[in-house]
């Protein structure tokens, strides 16, 4: 371990100071006020908690094909948003923020992400919600994640950036159907919504949560 030397900032600041700098960064960006960004987070966390999709039984359960709430909700979200967003962008009410096609990065990263999502039973969006409801194992996972983030930052230029490969552009589906863009977006959205509805609904319940609810509110007894 002796050869790993962090190059730290020479300014003598506390973690708290640096968190304030983070908030200041948001104030100076043109991406919503701090209050709005915080509120987006509150609603995001609230929806995930209220639908219980942060649960190990939902995400790891999907990896065992014993629960399909995750793909049903994800596909429905994507289908509805894709149609709404396409026409919002068309009308000038929003912009594209498309991520580049970095083929090696997407495939290697996707494999690592899929493996870890099955084992941890969380992803970076649902993990914090589980930590907020008292799941210590996920907090340990987050500490692992922070170290992963640290390693990625330390070796980005030397190792990870070359591994990701070159961008093949920021193509979107409608680029391949010139002249029929509107139709392509609508059909994509409808097909994805149809998939969400067509996936059979199966659920894996967690007795540890359900035993705290009155009998008539238990989803497994309806």
């Amino acid at each position: 371990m002796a050869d790993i030397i962090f190059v730290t900032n020479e300014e003598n600041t506390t973690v708290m100071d640096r968190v304030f700098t983070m908030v200041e960064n948001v104030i100076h960006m043109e991406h919503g006020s701090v209050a709005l960004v915080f509120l987006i987070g509150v609603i995001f966390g609230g929806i995930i908690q209220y639908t219980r999709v942060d649960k190990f039984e939902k995400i790891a359960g999907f990896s065992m094909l014993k629960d399909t709430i995750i793909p049903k909700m994800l596909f429905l979200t994507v289908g509805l948003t894709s149609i709404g967003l396409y026409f919002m962008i068309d009308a000038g009410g929003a912009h594209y923020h498309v991520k580049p096609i970095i083929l090696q990065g997407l495939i290697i990263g996707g494999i690592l992400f899929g493996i870890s999502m099955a084992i941890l039973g969380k992803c970076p969006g649902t993990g914090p919600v589980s930590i907020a409801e008292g799941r210590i194992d996920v907090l340990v996972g987050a500490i692992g994640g922070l170290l992963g983030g640290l390693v990625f930052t330390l070796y980005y230029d030397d190792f990870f950036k070359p591994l990701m490969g070159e961008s093949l552009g920021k193509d979107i589906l409608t680029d391949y159907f010139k002249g029929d863009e509107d139709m392509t977006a609508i059909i994509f959205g409808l097909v994805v919504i149809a998939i969400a509805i067509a996936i059979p609904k199966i659920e894996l319940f967690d007795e540890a949560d359900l035993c705290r609810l009155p009998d008539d509110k238990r989803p497994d007894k309806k």
Partner: protein
Amino acid sequence: MTNRLPWWMGGILMSFLLLLTFSIYGADRAIGASTYVPYAASLIFNLDPEKYSYINHIKDSGSWEGVMLLGVLFGGFITSVFITKSFRISLIPTAWKTYKNNSITSRLLWSFFSGFIMIIGARLAGGCTSGHFMSGMSQLAISAMIFGGVVMLTLVITGKLFYNTKGKK
């Protein structure tokens, strides 16, 4: 009042939230949830942005998502205490006991390991379930479709190999 929302209600609400975030009257950007992790690491370890180019690269996204994360923790906590009543301190999920083992050490070691490779994976791909799957696919992005396909496939293969599901309902 019910203690959980059905999947279709969750999908509709999440869709509205994404559209609000994309809208020029909202945040004029996509929702993402993995850039904040390396950014938080740079804050905690006080890394010098002059030395590590990645920090400057993610400064804006990391800050935005960092503030959003504080909201996620707050929203998740309030909802778990007052609505879903699911707040409890727990070290090992019920289904882990059913399909893997009863060992807390095993669960915590696997959590640490999977958390570590999860963030490496998300940053290699440039996004996660939120940034790629939800926000990316909603923009019809090809990058998100490749990522989504690889993740779904690997997820299901890992589930089959990692957990012992034989003879259990």
